[in-house]
């Protein structure tokens, strides 16, 4: 009988994406039990939102997910629009689609690079961060900010795209498309990656939905479920795109029964190709016109009252379902805003369950391949 010992991964560890920690109990190199420890990042956004007027919350919500802030702005705005009964202009819907897909691209670049780095391929992480920067450059041109854009807000988007936006975006998309085969060679066809990722970190298919798994992690388990299709928002209902899922992995070989690190990474690579396709279509089909409803005027913000009611809106983020539950009593401030982050389930219940029996060395790559992001656990 081997002696059980404790091991702490995090809160400042390259194998955990941010300020959270895992408390592991292990025997030899086998994990017997895991507990998620959070609390290093709690900023009390939900409480702060109850103290601020509706528009003042837009600059708060984007800070809930650092790698992909736009999904928060979109979900919050959609919930407020739902209560207000607003239909946003057609052009704003297309702009939102472009912004959200660019956000997905930048988040997936980080995630794929992160998984590779956790398995020793550090070059991929540098590439991911480097290529993401080209997208941040465009965000800066469009919104004025690199990370927290505060661009999507209730009623549409803050302002129209600059005149040269199409040209800038297409140039970066062409570049990224040329880079994709290089990422394949570096990661997906890498012997080390394959040895370490195939059949590791499995989320059982029959449990995936019950455990609340969503997004690319659910699709890697074999379900073709995507909220862009199930409950279309922005302009996704007018755009032709594919939802990659296991076992339809396109050019990537099917090497396992799905749900493992390899399949989740392959799904993210395929989704990046789809995002490029979506942005190109949206840029082509985007109509002219207003980008913000007439009711949303800055001089009215302080008097704004949102009709009483309950609203829940969801966005398919790069990590899974991002949802906002907004309650209003008809006043100038929300009564309650509750955020459903995908990492809340992936990072806590799923990780604690699948860690049992796992090798210690496989733990970090698994957490990163589930794209666990602590800021949306604690808000």
């Amino acid at each position, binding site marked *: 009988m081997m002696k059980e010992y404790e091991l702490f991964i995090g809160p400042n560890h390259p194998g955990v994406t941010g300020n959270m920690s895992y408390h592991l109990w292990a025997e030899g190199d086998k994990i017997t039990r895991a507990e998620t420890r959070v609390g290093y990042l709690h900023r009390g956004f939900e409480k702060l939102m109850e103290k601020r007027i509706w528009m003042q919350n837009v600059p708060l919500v984007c800070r809930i997910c650092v790698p992909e802030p736009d999904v928060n702005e979109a979900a919050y705005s959609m919930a407020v629009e739902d209560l207000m009964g607003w239909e946003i202009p057609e052009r704003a819907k297309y702009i939102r689609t472009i912004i959200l897909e660019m956000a997905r691209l930048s988040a997936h670049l980080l995630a794929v690079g992160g998984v590779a780095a956790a398995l020793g391929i550090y070059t991929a992480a540098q590439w991911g961060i480097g290529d993401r920067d080209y997208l941040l450059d465009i965000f800066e041109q469009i919104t004025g900010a690199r990370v927290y854009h505060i661009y999507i807000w209730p009623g549409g988007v803050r302002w129209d795209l600059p005149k040269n936006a199409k040209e800038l975006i297409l140039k970066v998309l062409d570049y990224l498309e040329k880079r994709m085969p290089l990422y394949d060679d570096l990661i997906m066809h890498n012997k080390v990656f394959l040895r370490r990722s195939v059949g590791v970190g499995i989320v059982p298919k029959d449990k995936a939905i019950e455990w609340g798994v969503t997004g690319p992690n659910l699709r890697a388990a074999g379900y073709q479920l995507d909220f862009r299709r199930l409950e279309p928002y922005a302009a996704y209902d007018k755009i032709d795109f594919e939802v990659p899922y296991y076992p339809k992995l396109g050019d990537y070989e099917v090497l396992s029964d799905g749900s493992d690190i390899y399949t989740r990474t392959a799904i993210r690579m395929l989704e990046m190709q789809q995002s490029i396709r979506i942005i190109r279509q949206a840029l082509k089909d985007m109509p002219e016109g207003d980008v913000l409803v007439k009711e949303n005027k800055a001089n009215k913000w302080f008097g704004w009252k949102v009709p009483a009611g309950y609203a829940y809106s*969801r966005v398919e983020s790069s990590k899974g379902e991002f949802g906002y539950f907004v309650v209003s009593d008809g006043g100038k401030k929300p009564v309650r805003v509750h955020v459903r982050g995908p990492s809340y389930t992936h990072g806590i219940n799923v990780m604690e369950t699948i860690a049992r029996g796992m090798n210690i060395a496989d733990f970090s790559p698994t957490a990163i391949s589930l794209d666990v992001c602590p800021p949306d656990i604690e808000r």
Partner: protein
Amino acid sequence: MKAKELFPDAQELRKGRVRIELDKEQITDALKKLKENGYTHFVMLSCVDWIKEGKFELVYHMWSYEYKEHVMLSVKINRDGEDVVSNRELFPQIETYEREIHEMFGVNFVGNPRLGEFILEGWPHMPPMRKDFDTEKFVKDLYYKIPEVNEE
């Protein structure tokens, strides 16, 4: 079966959003009934503080991939320490939501063994998400005091 057929007094907020008001005792059965009838994705558990009514509202969000419908099961309980039965056996992620609500609102979930420290650490004050917790006053009391110089 869709939620409207299972619960005749369900209120449709808009397309794909249904709200059902229930009593505390009915909640476990309702969750089970919905889970068996295609509402297989448990989205989240929210808590709303209605301080004027003296109530907490627990909202169980469920989603059906089959009907593309989101159901909010709403239960109101007294603010002054009324217990609720834990439903962690039905969906494992409920356990985490219950831990957070216990810590942030002070609701006790009977049958959840992990209702300890979760996000806050060594917190002796009132649960901070309650409406009567005044963040501004708390911060002023705690941080705005300049400690006196002790001259010896």
